[in-house]
Every structure is written in structure tokens, then in C-alpha cells.
């Protein structure tokens, strides 16, 4: 067995027992990336030299200092997370040459834990999309079937972990951008509670919905990485000031007495029957192990997609206005005056999907339309929060499919934005309500992975991880896919 095939928690143990070195692990992962990435296309930037240098440093430290359990473990980073001195393009022509002068909060944590950054991972441009087809640079392919998309927007982060070209990775989730690719690629992905991971240094898409989160091939790996990145940050006003437990130490697969809510709205029309069955089978397995199934209602779910696309696009239109060609990034070559420079830079620098959302967001915020769209969407958001609150009076977690279907084929939805948006139906409510949710593999349909999503109360990540851990005990940890 090659080193890249092991999970992070196994590698951590092997490192502490001196059965291998970080340099060997890193080399194995980089070799795996070199061998697979032509087909998978997960990486935008590979930092071979820096990664090996860091790995050697950690190897030297080992024995002399107490190291973090994830010290020396390779990690891949979504390309919208600011990495000091390392290209951070957001998969956009607009930032094709942008090197941040500072590290994101999560990168400070990752570096402090002595993890080894192997590179930056592909994504939909500015995290807008559900297939990673909106990257300016390349398309990422699903390791389970290279003709299929890995999901998005964190497609590179999920595909790299699935292919073994990363052991663990960081992504971001604004409307399902971690959970959907995790589901499509058959890995574990956690979207943490809004405010539990600092957004400082995450290039903003929709500030009130964005959250950074971990990917792993196992629940334990995901818990370990989440423990690294969560925590209060006074540079982020929306960061929650609270203490977090050691999620890994508290992992427990016992589901006796766990009340699992099943909302009928997530099992209705538009959700593939075989996906429903696969998810329900997993839930029933948990029931056999002592969990209790409770039927709940989340009726506002039917408005969630509309509300989500209004709120996220409104915020995006403002957040992305700073990409104007003045200070950094792409600037058009020929222009006549300031307005011309703005128009050409933004027309040439942004892709179609980004422009579509900027236009939509600009429209819903314009005077005369604000009340009809943005304000109404915010009211829907309040209803969604209320319904979740009352549902959590009856259950501990809510179980749903993470996606309405398994991974679709590349190009299948590209011409139909609304069909593409519909793929987010199971995930957007969680962001609107600021809740945590996890996608864990629970079987396959036609050889393609299906993800079970657990949604929890705010800051109930431990319960989600434990529920996912129970599922993982039934279906097994994921292994790198042969491509």
C-alpha cells in the first residue's frame, strides 16, 4: 500500500511511531498528483518544492518538539483561501496573477499545526457553480467517472481527496459547495456552523453564507482538520467567541437514542428515487443500531433556492465590485477612460456565470426592486430559521440526501443555469440558517457515490461527526480511487 492511500489519522500514527517520514508521505502524495492530475485536474498550483521543504522541517522537528497530530500531513487548499506568497486565483482570469500579501486565518492555523501544503485546488470561478466547470483555467473530473463532474464549487478539493492526490483538503461552502462535491466524489465534507471558522482571508462570495470547511476520506480525518481550523478570530466580526472541544477525541459511533429527523420536502419531487432509497437504507441501518426516526416538516424549503440565489447574488455583486483593474489582478490592455477601463476589465476578466450573478445581484439591490427581492428573500430566510428551530425541538439531527442525484456528466447542465442551480436544492437551506451539515458516503447508485447529509443545530458539529461516524462504520472509510 502506498503512503498516499492512508487516511490522515493512520499517517499521523505512523509518523509518531516513526514508521515513515513526512517527506516520504509528501513525496507519495505529490507523485500521486503527478500521476493522476492530468486526468482529474484537481490542482491549479502544485508547490512541490515548498511542500518537500516543509515536510523535511517537520521531520527534523519530530522528536525534539511536541507536534500537532496533523503535523507533516499533506493538505490541499481551495484556491479562494488566501495563502501568503502563493497564487490565489479563485479560478478566475481576474486574479490570474494575484499573490496575497497575507495568510487567511485558517492558513495560520494550518501552518501552526505544521501541515504540509501541497498546492491550491480548482474550483468554480469565485465559488459560483456546482460542477467546477466554471473555472477559467481547467475542468476537474470526477475520479469515480472521469466523464462526470466532481460537483462544485469545491470540486478540486473533493476530487483531490478522492483520487489520493491530497490526504485532506480545505474547501468553502456558500450553498453546498463542500457537501455537494463530497457527495459526488464519495468523500466526507463538513460545512461548519456559520461563525465557527473565521472567514478572514477567504475571498468573499456571499459574506453571510460563506464558511470554510474540511474534506477527508474518513470522518476522523475530517474531525481532526475541523479541530485545527475552528476557533474565535477577532479579525472576523461574525466569528463566534466560544471554546471548541477536541472533536476527534470525542468521536463516538453509538447512535442509541439519537433522534433522526426526516423532512419529507427533501425526499420529494426532483430527488432521484434511487438516491432517496440509498439514503433511507443508511438511515434504517442507524435505526437498527438504536436511532429513532422522526418525521418533520420544513415547508419553506420550496422557497429556499430562490431566496438563496437572491441573497448570495446580491452580496456577490458588492463583494466582487472590488475587482476593477485598479490595484491588482487583471486589467484590460486598451481603454479610453476610467469607465471604459472598468467595463472592459470586468467584461474580459469575469466568466459568464460570475457575470450572470453580478447582474442578478445588482438588479435585486436596485432602488425599486430591493423590497420585492432582497427584503422578501430575507423574510424567507427568517421562516427557514424558524422551521429548523422547531424541527430541532423534535430531533437531534436531520438526515437528507446531500444532492438530488449522483454526479452528472460534464457539459450536461452547462447550458441551463436553472437546472444547474437545482442541484443545490438539498444544501442551500443550511447556509441560509447558518447551520452545520456534513455529507458522508452511504453507498452508490450506478457506481457513483451517494452522500447522506446530516444537518444539526448551531455548533452541534460533534453530533454530526458522530452520526457520520456511525454511517462510516457501516459503509467503511473511503479509499483513493484508481483513475
Amino acid at each position, binding site marked *: 500500500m502506498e503512503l498516499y492511500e492512508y487516511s490522515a489519522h493512520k499517517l499521523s500514527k505512523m509518523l509518531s511511531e516513526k514508521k515513515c517520514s513526512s517527506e516520504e508521505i509528501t513525496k507519495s502524495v505529490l507523485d500521486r498528483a503527478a500521476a493522476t492530475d492530468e486526468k482529474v485536474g484537481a490542482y491549479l498550483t502544485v508547490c512541490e518544492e515548498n511542500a518537500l521543504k516543509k515536510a523535511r522541517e517537520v521531520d527534523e522537528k519530530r522528536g525534539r518538539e511536541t507536534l500537532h497530530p496533523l503535523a507533516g500531513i499533506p493538505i490541499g487548499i481551495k484556491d479562494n*483561501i*488566501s495563502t501568503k506568497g502563493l497564487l*490565489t486565483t*479563485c479560478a478566475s482570469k481576474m*486574479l490570474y496573477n*494575484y499573490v*496575497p*500579501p*497575507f495568510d*487567511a486565518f485558517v492558513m495560520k492555523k494550518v501552518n501552526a499545526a505544521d501541515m504540509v501544503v501541497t498546492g491550491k485546488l480548482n474550483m468554480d470561478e469565485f465559488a459560483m457553480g456546482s460542477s467546477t466547470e466554471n473555472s477559467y483555467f481547467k475542468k476537474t473530473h470526477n475520479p469515480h467517472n472521469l466523464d462526470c463532474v466532481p460537483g462544485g464549487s469545491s470540486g478540486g478539493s473533493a476530487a483531490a481527496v478522492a483520487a489520493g492526490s491530497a490526504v485532506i483538503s480545505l474547501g468553502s461552502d456558500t450553498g453546498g459547495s463542500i457537501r455537494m462535491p463530497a457527495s459526488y466524489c464519495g468523500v466526507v465534507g463538513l460545512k461548519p456552523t456559520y461563525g465557527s471558522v473565521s*472567514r*478572514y*482571508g*477567504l*475571498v*468573499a462570495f*456571499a*459574506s*453571510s453564507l460563506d464558511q470554510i470547511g474540511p474534506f477527508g476520506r474518513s470522518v476522523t480525518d475530517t474531525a481532526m482538520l475541523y479541530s485545527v481550523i475552528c476557533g474565535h478570530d*477577532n*479579525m*472576523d*466580526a*461574525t466569528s463566534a467567541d466560544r471554546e471548541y472541544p477536541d472533536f476527534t477525541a470525542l468521536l463516538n459511533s453509538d447512535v442509541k437514542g439519537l433522534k433522526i429527523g426526516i423532512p419529507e420536502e427533501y425526499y420529494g419531487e426532483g430527488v432521484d428515487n434511487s438516491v432517496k432509497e440509498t439514503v433511507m437504507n443508511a438511515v434504517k441501518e442507524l435505526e437498527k443500531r438504536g436511532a429513532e426516526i422522526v418525521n418533520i416538516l420544513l415547508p419553506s424549503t420550496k422557497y429556499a433556492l430562490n431566496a438563496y440565489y437572491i441573497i448570495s447574488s*446580491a*452580496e456577490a*455583486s*458588492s463583494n466582487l*465590485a*472590488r*475587482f*476593477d483593474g*485598479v*490595484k*491588482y489582478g487583471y486589467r484590460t490592455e486598451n481603454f479610453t477612460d*476610467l469607465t471604459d477601463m*472598468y467595463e472592459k476589465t470586468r467584461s474580459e476578466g469575469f466568466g459568464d456565470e460570475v457575470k450572470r450573478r453580478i447582474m442578478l445581484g*445588482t438588479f435585486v*439591490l*436596485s*432602488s425599486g426592486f*430591493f423590497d420585492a427581492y*432582497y427584503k422578501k428573500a430575507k423574510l424567507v430566510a427568517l421562516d427557514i430559521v424558524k422551521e429548523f428551530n422547531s424541527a430541532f425541538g423534535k430531533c437531534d439531527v436531520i438526515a437528507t440526501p446531500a444532492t438530488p442525484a449522483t454526479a452528472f456528466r460534464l457539459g450536461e447542465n452547462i447550458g441551463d443555469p436553472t437546472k444547474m442551480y437545482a442541484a443545490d436544492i438539498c444544501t442551500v437551506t443550511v447556509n441560509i440558517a447558518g447551520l452545520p451539515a456534513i455529507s458522508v458516503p452511504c453507498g452508490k447508485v450506478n457506481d457513483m457515490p451517494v452522500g447522506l447529509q446530516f444537518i444539526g443545530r448551531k455548533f452541534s458539529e460533534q453530533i454530526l461527526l458522530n452520526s457520520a461516524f456511525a454511517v462510516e462504520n457501516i459503509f467503511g472509510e473511503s479509499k483513493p480511487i484508481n483513475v
Partner: protein
Amino acid sequence: MEYETIVGLEVHAELNTKTKIYCNCKNAFGLEVNTQICPICTGMPGTLPTLNEKVVEYAVKMGHATNCSINNVCKQDRKNYFYPDLPKAYQISQSDIPLCEHGYVDIMLNGEEKRIGITRIHIEEDAGKMLHNDAFQGSLVDFNRCGVPLIEIVSEPDMRSSAEAKAYLDTLKSILQYIDISDCKMEQGSIRCDVNVSVRPKGSTEFGKRVEMKNVNSFSGAMRAIDYEANRQIEALERGEEINQETRRWDDQKGVNVLLRTKEDAQDYRYFPEPDLTTIYVPLEKVEELKNDIPELPNAKIKRYVKVLGLSQIDAELIAENLPRCRLFDECVKICGYFGKDSVSPKNLSNWVLGDVSKYMNETGKDIADTPLDANLLCKIVELIETKVISNTSGKVIFEEIMNGNTDIDKIIEDKGLRQISDDSAIEKIVNDVLAANQKSVDDYRGGKTNALGFLVGQCMKASKGQANPAKCKELVLKYLNG
């Protein structure tokens, strides 16, 4: 036809907090370009604002000082527009819920008091500055000013002339200085204003179409701009033209304004709640505490000086308009008691403060705080004069000595022999000697040349080396001449 001018003002005042509003950069003027900046105030991707609480406190103080109600729960909003000096392409401001609203200030004009309504006061961030350099084709941007905290004070259209507008601006300025929240340095742009002007036939109760003028950089410029615009509108109306609601740019050097944009071209700022910041909440106890921090304000001071201390209106206004001056005066009054010691009246003190003290400050450009003078020393000088221990002339000598760093008044009197002779027998001897030596002048006086009296008293003062009490001398000389 007779017309009435209607004026409303939007005043922007830079707050003198130590750091900027959303980052820890120094809030300072006049430093080398682009040295007081960081990734946050220059809007680098991924950065987030965190609110400087002092800004809220300062604005609440201004709200109290202008009799506003305080919205202790409010929010911040984004005002979206493109310009190179605005690196995020939005300004964080407040739209529908300002921190303070519904207040007023009373202004004094030609001895008449008038109340001007304050619509609202809100907090926001300043933008950078465009620079134009001959050596460089194109424009440069200095971001030092980005994120400097501002309050915008919006008045009701309650002013009826440029003189009232000027009085209003002077009043605001002195309030800002009294509560010490702004440096109020016009030449550094720390107070700027936009002027709204309309005209209507006298007697009409409906407002005319309003024209907004930008780029008004001084209070006197505001007067010129208002007078110019009112005349322009009146002339247009007289020609039978209509006034358009529009924005014009004031050119103070040429003394004219030019059309900037019409109502149709008005920008849509697409305000929406700033998702990167949480709700502003000021506990009610804090609101009250800040109210108690407000010192006696200029209007109240002037009234007290006139009614309680018996100063003239003009002296009261002169003292109150200069904060260091009125601090010195107030301290002196406090030391001497509100109704003065036996011989030191507020009037005596005011004469000194407005006389020698002001003269010294004006001539040297020094602040009182930078000199050895304090209230105790000044009170002592005045008391010594009024109790006839020293002459007025000697008082001036002592004042100068103090300003030169010699603050031991008793020693100055001894060293310079400034103690006044008030002892009757001693003075009588001097008078007798002088009269005996100046028989011609005595004869002149008795012959009707009464100005000989001054000469004789002068000779007595000279003979006493200036130490004789001049009133006493005069009394004795007259007694002899008329006797």
C-alpha cells in the same frame, strides 16, 4: 418678486480617534502617501472590517450634543459605487437606521437665536485621495485616508441665508471642538460639506426644486456657493425657466458652479446591510454615560456668561468661541468663585483673557497649554491689581515674566520692586515734593489749563518709580490744587 433662500447642509467631520474605523491603522493626516495602510483598509480580497467602538462612542456624543435621539441598536450598510479611491468599490455607511436622529442646534445670528433641525448623524468610512502628478501620465491614489472615521451630520432645510448657514457651521464646529471628537482643521479637510439650496417666492410654504453642491471646502466658500446658487436660481426663475433637481460642482476659485449630474443620472448606490459586520449595540447605560461626558456647550456657556457672570454678549461670544480661552476663563472663575472674590470680578478676568492673554496667543501662535500660564497665576495677577498691591502696568510686566518661564510672582514683585505705594503719608510726601518743584504747572492748572493735572500726576508716578497708587496720587494732587 421677492425670494427666500432655503439651505440644508450635509457636513462630514473626520473623527480624531487614534486608529481607523475598521482596522488598526493609524488615523493621521499628512504622512507620506500609502504608509498608513493595511490589507483591510485597502480592501484586499478576503479581508474583513471590524468596527472601532470609539467611533460609535464619538458619534453618540455628537448626537447628545445636538439633542438627537440615539438608536442604540442599529446597523451598517454598504453604499456601492466605483471609483479608484474606493478600493472595495463600496463605502461602509449607514442608510435607513442612523446612529442618531431628530436633533437640533441653536444658532446665534445678530443677537437672535434660531433653532436648526438635525435630521440625522451617521458613521461611515472616508475614501482615499486621487493624486495627479506631472511626472506620471494618469492618476495615482493615496490610500492613507481610506477608513478614516467620519460622521455625516445632515440638517433640516431650516436655514434661510448664507449667513445662517455660516452660523450653523460655526456652531457645529465649536461643538465638535468642545466635545473633542474632531480636529476641525478645514485646511486638512477634516470638515467638509455638501450644500443643498432651493429658492421660493417669499411667503410660499412649498419648497422649490433642490440643487446639491459638491466640493465646498470652507465655511466662507459655503457662503459664496449658497449666494451664487440662490442668485442663479432666482435669475432662472425670473427668466421663466424651471429649476431642475440636480447636482452641481462648486468652483471656489472661479466663484461659479457647473452641472455635475441631473436627477436622471443620479447614482443608484444599492444600499444593503453590511454582512461582514454585526448589529451595533450600545447598552443604554453606556448611552447615558456618554451623555454625562458632554461638557457645557458653547450656547449654554454664552448664556451663563451673560446672565450669571454679567459679561457683555460680545465678550461672552468671544471667550466661548475659543476652547482653550474659555477653559482658562472657566477655571479662573471657578478659583475666584462665581461672583468673584471681593475684588476679582468675572469682568476683570474676561478683560485679561480677551486682552493680554489673547494678544499673546495671537502674536505667538501658541496654545495656552503650551505656556507656563495657568488659571491660578492669572487669578493672582488680577487679584493683585484689583487689591491695589500692584499697578495695572506692573501686572503686564508680571504676565510677560510668567510667559518667559518665571512663575514666582512674589519674587518678581520683590526683584522688580513692583509693590504699589498706597500708604497716604508716603504718597503725600512725594506729592508735596513734586508740587514744590513744579510751581509753573500748579499755576497753569489754577489758571485754567487743566491738562497740567496729568503732567503733575505723571511726575508723582515717576518720582515713586511707578510704585505709587496713581489714583491716590491724583486724589492728593487735586486736593492740593483745589485746596
